[in-house]
């Protein structure tokens, strides 16, 4: 995420807080659309449906939007989800266009406009990547496409955060309200912690994608190494979320709407859920690993290829991974904002 430096606070004080409400709403809409899009995209891979439609940008020669809906809805399941993924992706593309236009017209902070443009370019890039993956029949590009999706999701979340009302309200200093000086100083390390969460969350996504889009010729030891890293990083991430919660809790009293301890608490739960889903994903694909053979039911466990619930577990693991990244991003961006505000608040206080 390319966050540009905050413009001078003087610029902001003039601006009407409601002016960019439409931008914020569109950003939230894109967040709400992109998560399902990641689910459907995950299902596409789980069902190996990526190549259910061999051409692109057309669907079997039809324009994306003109493909007969009956054939789509009543056709094979893999065609259903692949074409559905494309349609939903196109909708997100339109929202991103709307977002950029709205930001151009309504948003006073230029860097927010450029951020919206970057989001639009990213969605175009992501769509093209998905398309080239189909045309080239490339598993590697499928993996890159799968890794870029969550990054895009995180960018949408960041955009929604920076356009939110509480973002503006959280900096009384911006509006020259020097009276409020009880803002606690947010230490740099808290912001860094947020960044570490984002980095670890994304590392996990990349490692997971390596396992999911495994090349047939990969050596078993290579695969095993990635598995070990993926599992170890999961627990490292989990402990960092605990530290994060503790840190955010300490900030609790300071910051009104922008309190971060709630998302930080949610993150602990999400990572735990993700560890459970990850175990489920392994079991659904490869059965109970040797060291868990003592688990009740493991002895008689039967893997069912393409089982519905198995696919849901696997896809949920993918989607929750993105959610963890998104929540981490939110925490990071907000803590960064809080630090900025607390610093400028104390500057204002010092000046007066």
């Amino acid at each position, binding site marked *: 995420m390319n966050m540009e430096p905050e413009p001078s606070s003087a610029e902001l004080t003039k601006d009407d807080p409601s002016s960019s409400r439409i931008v914020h709403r569109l950003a939230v809409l894109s967040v709400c659309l992109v998560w399902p899009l990641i689910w459907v995209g995950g299902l596409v891979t789980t069902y*190996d*449906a*990526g*190549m*259910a439609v*061999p051409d692109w940008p057309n669907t*079997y020669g039809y324009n994306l939007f003109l493909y007969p809906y009956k054939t789509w809805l009543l*056709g*094979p399941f*893999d*065609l259903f989800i692949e074409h559905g993924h494309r349609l939903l992706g196109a909708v997100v593309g339109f929202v991103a266009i709307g977002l950029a236009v709205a930001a151009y017209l309504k948003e006073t902070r230029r860097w927010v406009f450029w951020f919206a443009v970057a989001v639009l370019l990213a969605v175009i890039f992501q769509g093209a*990547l998905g398309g*080239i*993956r189909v045309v*080239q*029949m*490339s*598993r*590697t*590009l499928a*993996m*890159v496409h799968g*890794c870029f999706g969550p990054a895009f999701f995180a960018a949408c979340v960041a955009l929604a955060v920076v356009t939110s009302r509480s973002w503006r309200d959280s900096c009384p200093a911006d509006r020259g309200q020097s009276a409020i000086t009880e803002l606690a100083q947010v230490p740099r390390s808290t912001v860094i912690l947020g960044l570490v969460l984002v980095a670890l969350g994304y590392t996990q996504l*990349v490692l997971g994608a*390596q396992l999911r889009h*495994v*090349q*047939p*010729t*990969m*050596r*078993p*030891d*290579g*695969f*095993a190494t990635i*598995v070990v890293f993926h599992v170890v990083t999961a627990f490292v991430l989990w402990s960092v979320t605990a530290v994060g919660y503790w840190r955010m809790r300490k900030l609790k009293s300071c910051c009104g709407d922008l309190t971060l301890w709630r998302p930080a608490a949610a993150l602990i739960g999400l990572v735990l859920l993700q560890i459970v889903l990850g175990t489920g994903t392994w079991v659904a*694909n*490869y*059965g109970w*690993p*040797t060291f868990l*053979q003592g688990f009740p039911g*493991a*002895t*008689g*466990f*039967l*893997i*069912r*290829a*393409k*089982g519905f619930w198995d696919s849901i577990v696997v896809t949920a693991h993918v989607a929750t991974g993105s959610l963890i990244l998104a929540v981490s991003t939110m925490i990071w961006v907000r803590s960064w904002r809080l630090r900025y505000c607390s610093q400028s608040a104390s500057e204002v206080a010092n000046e007066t």
Partner: protein
Amino acid sequence: MRPVILLCLLLAIGCDAAIDQFPANDVYALTLAHSRDVRTELAQRDVAEVIRSLFGTPESPVWPSEIFDGEAKSLVKSESLTAAAGPIFSDREGNNFGLFNKHCVACHGVSGSGAGPAAVFQNPYPRDFQAGVFKWKSTERSAKPTRDDLVGLLHRGVKGTGMPSFALVSEADVSALTDYLVYLSVRGEAERKLLAFAIDELGYDDSEDDSSEFLIEDADVHQIVGEIVESWLDASKRGVPVPKEVASNTDSIARGKDLFHGQIANCVGCHGPGGNGAAVTLDFDDWAKEYSSRIGLTPTNRDAMKPFRQAGALRPRQIKPRQLNQGVLRGAGDGKAIYRQISQGIAGTPMPSLTITKQESATGLTSDQVWDLVHYVQSLGSQPGDTLP
């Protein structure tokens, strides 16, 4: 990893590892090199060429029907190979392609060596098709499985192992996969047999001589491949007949219990009293023994195994006799299947065969006694013969 990903993006030409040929069976070559104390590079090179020209590549596999006659020509259908091989996609009619890559390759590997990427954490390891030995079948211990055995296996899966049930995959796809698996097995076995033949019979073993003369004759190739294919065609004639079942009642179970714990069958020696798995055993399956104990190496010795691991073998893993009182069977699980397992043993594993005699004797069991054992085994598990709905 990131630079690699970026590189892929820049090139934008899918930089998937090209699978333009089947990986060579280096583990077997090393096994031969070790047991015969010879070099195998030349033999490997020439055998690879023969095998490639006969069987094609993973992207375009070939069934060499021109060298066979009769039934052998259609043991494997070329449409099946087209559907099973190559990249994963499906066409407008919903026909699926790349089936082996989609469903099997992560475990069984490109050449069916059983050392696919995800093999390491599994117990037992995925099957190596190349040795041509299969466990769960209705035929004699040394025979190949029938087609029905394989289709049944894919439908059923193997409980408690990594082998999934493909019951939700269409019949046409399962049929294509079955053909492909037979193809891989024949191809792999041909590679092994040719390699052994080249080294033992053709003088490729001469480590001094590096003349690059090609010594493998077509006639020998056809002979060797022909015999392998014959063994697959023979499978249906080598089914194990199952005599009439004796009445299953408490008497039969009690007799079975005695036999189980008795001298002749001595099931207890491996399966423990009451099949509770308490017997102490230290054994390996034949796939692992081949590159360890059979050539004088200790399977648990990491240093001894290292060269084999580098050649692509998995670390030998102990095989444990089934804990029968848990009621989970990996084969077909019905009475007949258990009868066959007890009389034939389980191929590739330490589970031995029994001598079936006409009269009760000190060395073998009658078929009625085998049925008693079956009933006893069934009584041990709470849900014997539990199969997929």
